């Protein structure tokens, strides 16, 4: 057996002796005999670490990774960005990786201060005063935002634009079964923006949810959305692509009450979709209903500045069945990683990065236009939707063979392809992609 636990046979014997026992099995005397297994688990035997690493290398070799095997134009919440070496290095320090939730702040200032800095960055990005220390992913953040709106308004009526990520909407429906949400989906118009009605009716509501930009890439009119939501006493919940905020105005500045999003773009690897980073920020008035952990500033006995998790009375371990969120373990490590990566990019770099994403996507759109694949709107940031003359699934399949992940196919729309571009895509890659696509469609 590989040596995971340190105990030598002799020590086990001695420890058992101290407990007046003869065998390890005796430790389980309180388990009814009928429940104690006599057979070993039906699992393979142990292996050395090197064999496991090699085995997982083979698992990996049976996937097509971006860059190694595929040039990616897929987005939908997670994007193939260039990652900074500094963030990778700093985020993988064992003091961050192998710590628990900072329950003893005297020996957890590293994690706590990093989270405080993360909260500040998210708040500034979103244009709102308070942000939490992360949730599981963009979908979870949306669910928590709606729960918070429900908790605040004590109403269950929720309007969701069909432009919100379909998986997020599905998660909302899944969890909404527990919280008795009454979800109404608002359809999109031809330009893929939400077809906002003149009014959301006479009944008061809990929330209106729109994307900014939305799943199909279109930039929604948040000012109008805010007015509509306000008219029925509902909170405006905005699901953002955080990178877009380097170029576009903050949703907070446009009236959003709660802003959520997927933070993978902020320095987290694709990771086959997880671990990701749920971002969450809100107006001050919702502070005491915020889900997740909050880190605050304080002083120690000697007057030195220090950080601590605060407003803990909101949390499940204290509020128990009255808590509006059950989150405990979150995505702290990803939050720290994002704080580091955002610091590496910095004020100027983040703006420049956003612009590069914009330029890349619009350049691709212009080239695809030449093939007759015209984006549904010109008002997009770094992701856009085109109609495909053949099955989009089939097209993606064919492009795979050429080493391209052509984009994502929205569930239920096999004639559409959503393409995303990041700063990692060069002109040469885009030109070759368009050229190859043209040949496949000819």
């Amino acid at each position, binding site marked *: 057996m590989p040596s995971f636990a340190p105990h030598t046979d002799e020590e086990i014997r001695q420890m058992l002796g101290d407990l007046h026992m003869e065998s390890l099995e005796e430790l389980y005397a309180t388990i009814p005999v009928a429940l104690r297994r006599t057979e070993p688990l039906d699992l393979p035997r142990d292996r050395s670490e090197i064999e496991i690493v090699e085995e997982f290398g083979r698992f990996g070799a049976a996937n097509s990774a971006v860059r190694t095997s595929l040039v990616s134009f897929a987005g939908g919440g997670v994007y193939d960005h260039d990652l900074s070496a500094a963030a990778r290095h700093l985020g993988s*320090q064992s*003091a961050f990786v192998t710590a628990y939730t900072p329950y003893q702040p005297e020996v957890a200032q590293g994690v706590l201060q990093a989270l405080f800095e993360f909260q500040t960055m998210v708040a500034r990005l979103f244009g709102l005063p308070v942000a939490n220390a992360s949730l599981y992913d963009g979908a979870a953040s949306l669910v928590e935002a709606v729960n918070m709106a429900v908790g605040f308004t004590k109403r269950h009526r929720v309007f969701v634009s069909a432009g919100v990520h379909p998986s997020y909407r599905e998660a909302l429906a899944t969890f909404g079964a527990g919280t008795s949400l009454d979800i109404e989906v608002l359809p999109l118009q031809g330009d893929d923006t939400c077809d906002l009605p003149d009014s959301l009716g006479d009944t008061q509501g809990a929330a209106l949810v729109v994307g900014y930009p939305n799943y199909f890439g279109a930039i929604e009119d948040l000012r109008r959305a805010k007015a509509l939501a306000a008219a029925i006493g509902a909170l405006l919940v905005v699901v953002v692509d955080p990178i877009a905020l380097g170029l576009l105005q903050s949703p907070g500045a446009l009236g959003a009450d709660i802003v959520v999003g997927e933070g993978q773009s902020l320095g987290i690897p694709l990771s086959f979709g997880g671990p990701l980073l749920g971002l969450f920020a809100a107006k001050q008035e919702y502070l005491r209903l915020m889900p997740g952990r909050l880190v605050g500033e304080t002083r120690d006995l000697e007057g030195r500045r220090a950080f601590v998790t605060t407003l803990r009375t909101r949390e499940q371990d204290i509020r128990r069945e009255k*808590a509006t969120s059950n989150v*405990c*373990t979150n995505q702290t490590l990803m939050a720290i990683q994002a704080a580091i990566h955002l610091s590496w990019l910095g004020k*100027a770099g983040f703006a420049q990065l956003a612009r590069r994403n914009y330029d890349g996507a619009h350049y691709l759109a212009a080239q695809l236009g030449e093939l007759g694949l015209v984006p549904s709107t010109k008002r997009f940031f770094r992701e856009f939707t085109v109609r495909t003359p053949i099955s989009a699934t089939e097209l993606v399949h064919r492009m795979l063979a050429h080493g391209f992940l052509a984009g994502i196919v929205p569930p239920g729309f096999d004639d559409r392809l959503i393409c995303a571009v990041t700063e990692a895509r060069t002109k040469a890659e885009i030109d070759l992609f368009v050229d190859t696509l043209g040949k496949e469609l000819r």
Partner: protein
Amino acid sequence: MNFLSHSAAGGRASSSPLVGDAPEPTIFELSVADRRAYSLRETEIPPMALDGIEEWLRTDPIDLPEVSERDLVAHFTRLASRNYSVDLGAYPLGSCTMKYNPKFADQIAAIDGLVNVHPATPPEAIQGWLRLLHELEGYVCEITGMAQATLQPPAGASGELTGLLIMRAYHASKGRKPSKVVIPDSAHGTNPASVSLAGFQAVTVPSGPNGLVDLEKLKALVDQDTAGIMLTNPNTLGLFEQEIQEILAVIHAVGGLAYYDGANLNAIVGVARPGDMGFDIVHSNLHKTFATPHGGGGPGAGPVAVVEHLAEFLPGPLPRPVDAGNTYTWMTPQRSIGRVHAFFGNAVVLARALAFMRYLGRDGLTTMSQLAVLNANWLKHRIETTFEVAYDQPCMHEFVVSAERLKEETGVRALDVAKALLDAGFHAPTIYFPLVVHEALMIEPTETESPQTLEALAQALEQIVATAKDDSAAVLDMPQNTPVRRLDEAGAARNPVLTEDGRH
């Protein structure tokens, strides 16, 4: 020119506990206008017109930090040096299973073909991932005694809610809508919270004097309106619910389902299985039992496994073999409750956990649990004259002692003992949980700590108690040797400063 306009400079390690004792400035305080760390690749893409979005354009760039890479690295290196971690020393935090995480798993988590895969990649190009996840599902089911599992829930609490929504869907499929879920008073806070979020009402069953569910009281609580029960076993007191079969029979008798909170699975892998006990739905905290690192608070992974007849409700998609097992694809069960994660859960965490299971193998996994239980019992035995053991019975992987007597005698509380342990070079145990024990210290040594470490921990506890009796003020004044000393936590909550801009 005096360049030191702010509290401290980047190139000085004064904030590190290695040298000096000043606090570390925030990254914003280290910022200087126009300083930068980034470099972006040359793409040769021309600037494109900003037509049609003029009205949405930001006028000022976001006020992110402006630091050199050198200061960035120094800052976060110093922050890391101000943080305790398993890699530094023992972390006997009850209920959290802070075991050592073997380093080869970091290599697994860095494999290009695993970590750099987009989740929207078509199944034909992710056969490795599908096989890996399906294999992990098999391990989870074999260990818990279940039939099928979803790997989507990214943490234990998410698994709980997923499981409870399955419970809900099951009842609905039978045309029923029971409203209550029973939980014991010793339950972790996530349990009642999840029960509420799943639309049920949490009904608390008290523990008996032996720390176990009081079967008679349970019977009195349960009726046709009972959707099910939610239990950890061993429970949060570290005790095995000996009447578990009887308890679950009570629930099943009214058509309810039994949910197993796997946070304490580390006690019994290979020894007993929730499925054999009669549980219908089981989540496992892979970040606890299967040694994926906790990351300062996450990410985790909380797969939910179910008995066969509940499999149709599992969230989709699930990785499933086709073509006689030669190929894998995604399939969503007919009556799925729907997704609970944007993609497939914390995939890289899942890979780490499978790697750990493969490493230890059949026998190693069982030994792991046995030694976790041995360590807990030995340490309990070792300190039973120092602190009152809450329940004087053989424990599983953790146990609870009370500092109540000490508090009465000396004024030194569980909190103070915890702080004093920091000075002794250990992380503190969990305190004030479970709620049923006053001045609780919940100690979970885990199997990765050696008997020498347990002895040192016991001696440190003895020393603290001796000091408390001798000079309680000295203990109340601890910790002294940590990067900061006790904090004004009340002040932090009274006047919350949650961002750099939130100071008043």
